[in-house]
């Protein structure tokens, strides 16, 4: 297979492949070395054009891919230590092409939208530098043909995420949010690194294709070592993809600018965990327990985040929890062995979640940085384009049957769960679908309907211009059934899911899923649109308790604070004055005391010195006399 690809790639314009990450890198370097000399327009142009050209390159690659299939390209050897020679080598197959399309395509529209969103902000050059660096790292992550290069991209996107969450650095809370994201994802990264070490010590290579080839020869299915390796990889994926229990950073990550939330914390970086598991599917196939746990974690996360999203008032936090929930669906699909379905949902989710975030960004800017639903409302007449974006994106999120992209991918996930005979996961998915419809309706009605509840909402300014309109229109188009027509070419890369062979009962499940989504929407309209008085239940009694619990996302932050952060700080405080330091401090004090005593003898008086000398001489003579007498 590989050799086949190599021979074909000679005929291919392989020189195009490095451009996908070199263009964002060049953009980063130009912006980084301009030292703030570029104007707003020039910064935005450089930042957007580099990603646009990368997207065009990707389109050319996709055309070449359709004709010639996968290709592989080794640029140079990165490190050479004995047999260990990981290269800067790229592999383009159906999976990485799909990811590449999402990163550069959706990324380009988000960069374009940011040119409108960031008007009048300080440090636009810094913003576009980090954004281009992010795209560069993310492209390396998906194109790397060995785990080391993947890890380089993995850490690079983590860094950019940290930098961009803390973009508005004048508020310390934003800095802490970035700090939290960095630390928590680092926990996952340690697991990933350990998994890489384990695979390398056992298989002697970090090349992904070789690992997938060697693993079935080295291990039986269910072997403890391979289970451990799979669990370690899963740990890395959980940290990056904000799955239970490493999910708490994502909601706080909304402190960054909204285009950042759209690109990094919805469309691309947080789905890197899904990509990792799909990429290493050969390991997970050998580890049924780890695979099952993946599905369970996905199901738990989608339910937890679904409830939490119901009780948020900040529109970006609603979207953050819905992102966690949707990635939970992807993990669920991975858990039942339907890797291609997970990647399909990843793609449609990137479209509609980017659309939702950009629409939310349009609302936030139009309403003078107001993003609390309790102070918005009644905007649909003034902001028709963001409203349409929310409607289309929300329909895809809630999986409105037939016309939305989300329906096709989510329905496929539920079908795969049923075909894999995982009833528990299926029920979790259906309950999650109901929750999704509810919080989506609550979000749209709370933001766009009813009466405007603040001056900021009453004096909303309609967004204008190409940079504002084009991304919303294109992403809205992709969020409908048009997006679902794009079939990722995954058949060669990933094994078929359990539901690909048979279709017995598929249509009845489709009906059930459609009924759940529609029922949820009807319930949402009734609850949040028509019977608003009913919501006062959330203000008192058990309703208020539930609201409080869900508003704080089941209190995970509090639990971690008390079980990890506070004990850690206590330990640090205790160790600050430790025993051994005290010992050395005592020694220092003794020396100082002796010094003080000796310096006293330097009185400056000649008579004193004479007396001391005479006494010393007398002492020496006396002792000499005694010694002589002794012998």
């Amino acid at each position, binding site marked *: 297979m590989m050799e086949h690809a190599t021979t074909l790639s000679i005929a291919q314009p392989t020189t195009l492949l490095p451009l996908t990450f070199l263009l964002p890198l060049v953009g980063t370097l130009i912006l980084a070395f301009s030292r703030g000399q570029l104007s707003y327009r020039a910064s935005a142009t450089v930042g957007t054009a580099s990603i646009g050209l990368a997207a065009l390159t990707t389109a050319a690659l996709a055309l070449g891919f359709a004709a010639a299939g996968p290709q592989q390209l080794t640029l140079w050897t990165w490190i050479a230590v004995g047999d260990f020679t990981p290269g800067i080598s790229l592999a383009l197959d159906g999976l990485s092409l799909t990811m590449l399309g999402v990163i550069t395509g959706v990324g380009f529209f988000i960069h374009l939208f940011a040119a409108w969103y960031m008007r009048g902000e300080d440090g636009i050059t810094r913003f576009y530098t980090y954004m281009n660096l992010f795209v560069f790292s993310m492209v390396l992550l998906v194109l790397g043909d060995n785990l080391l290069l993947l890890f380089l991209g993995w850490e690079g996107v983590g860094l950019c995420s940290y930098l961009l969450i803390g973009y508005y650095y004048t508020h310390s809370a934003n800095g802490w949010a970035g700090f939290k994201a960095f630390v928590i994802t680092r926990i996952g990264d340690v697991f990933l690194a350990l998994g890489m070490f384990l695979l390398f010590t056992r298989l002697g290579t970090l090349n992904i294709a070789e690992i997938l080839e060697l693993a079935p020869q080295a291990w039986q299915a269910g072997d403890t070592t391979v289970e451990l390796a799979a669990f370690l990889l899963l740990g890395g994926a959980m940290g990056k993809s904000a799955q239970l229990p490493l999910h708490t950073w994502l909601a706080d990550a909304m402190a960054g600018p909204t285009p950042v939330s759209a690109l990094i914390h919805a469309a691309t970086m947080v789905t890197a965990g899904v990509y990792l598991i799909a990429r290493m599917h050969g390991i997970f196939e050998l580890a049924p327990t780890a695979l099952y746990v993946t599905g369970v974690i996905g199901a738990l996360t989608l339910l937890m985040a679904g409830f939490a999203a119901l009780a948020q008032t900040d529109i970006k936090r609603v979207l953050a929890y819905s992102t966690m929930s949707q990635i939970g669906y992807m993990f669920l699909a991975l858990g039942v062995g339907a890797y291609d379905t997970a990647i399909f949902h990843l793609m449609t989710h990137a479209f509609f979640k980017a659309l939702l975030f950009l629409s939310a960004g349009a609302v936030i800017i139009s309403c003078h940085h107001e993003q609390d639903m309790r102070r918005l409302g009644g905007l649909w007449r003034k902001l028709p384009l963001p409203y349409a974006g929310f409607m289309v994106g929300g329909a895809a999120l809630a999986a409105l049957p037939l016309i939305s992209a989300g329906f096709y991918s989510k329905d496929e996930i539920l079908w795969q769960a049923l075909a894999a005979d995982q009833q528990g996961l299926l029920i979790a998915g259906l309950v999650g679908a109901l929750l999704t419809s509810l919080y989506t309706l609550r979000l749209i009605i709370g933001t766009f309907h009813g009466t405007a509840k603040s001056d900021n909402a009453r004096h909303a300014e309609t967004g204008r211009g190409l940079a504002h309109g084009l991304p919303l229109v294109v992403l809205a188009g992709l969020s409908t059934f048009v997006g679902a027509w794009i079939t990722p070419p995954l058949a060669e890369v990933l094994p078929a899911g359990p539901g690909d062979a048979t279709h017995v009962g598929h249509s009845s499940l489709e009906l059930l899923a459609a009924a759940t989504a529609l029922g949820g929407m009807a319930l949402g309209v009734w609850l949040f649109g028509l019977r608003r008085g009913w919501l006062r239940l959330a203000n008192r009694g058990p309703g208020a308790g539930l609201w409080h619990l869900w508003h704080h996302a089941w209190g995970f932050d509090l639990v971690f604070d008390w079980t990890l952060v506070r004990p850690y700080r206590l330990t640090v405080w205790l160790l600050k004055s430790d025993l051994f330091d005290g010992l050395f401090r005592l020694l220092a004090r003794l020396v100082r005391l002796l010094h003080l005593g000796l310096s006293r*003898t*330097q009185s*400056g*008086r*000649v*008579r004193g010195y004479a*007396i001391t000398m005479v006494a010393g001489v007398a002492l020496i003579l006396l002792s000499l006399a005694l010694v002589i007498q002794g012998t």
Partner: protein
Amino acid sequence: MNGVPMEHGLVLAAVLFALGLGGLMFRRNMIFVLMSLEVMLNAAGLAFIVAGTGWQQPEGQAMFLLVITLAAAEASVGLALLIQLYHRFRTLNLDVASRMRG
């Protein structure tokens, strides 16, 4: 000279040396300190003479010449210091000049 035993001469030298040492240690006035030093040097010279005579050796005499030279040099330096002390402090009290303390 033969009538005086060597021990007597040495005891006299030791007593003179002890007196000089006492003066050196306990006198504050610099003139007395210098005089005590002279007494000590002469006590040492006396011990050389007594020992040289007792053992019928010429080196004792030679050493005394050396001691006299030394004493002269010491006296000149000492008196120069004394004049400087008086210039600076208008007193001959040695304890006043104690600024070089640790």
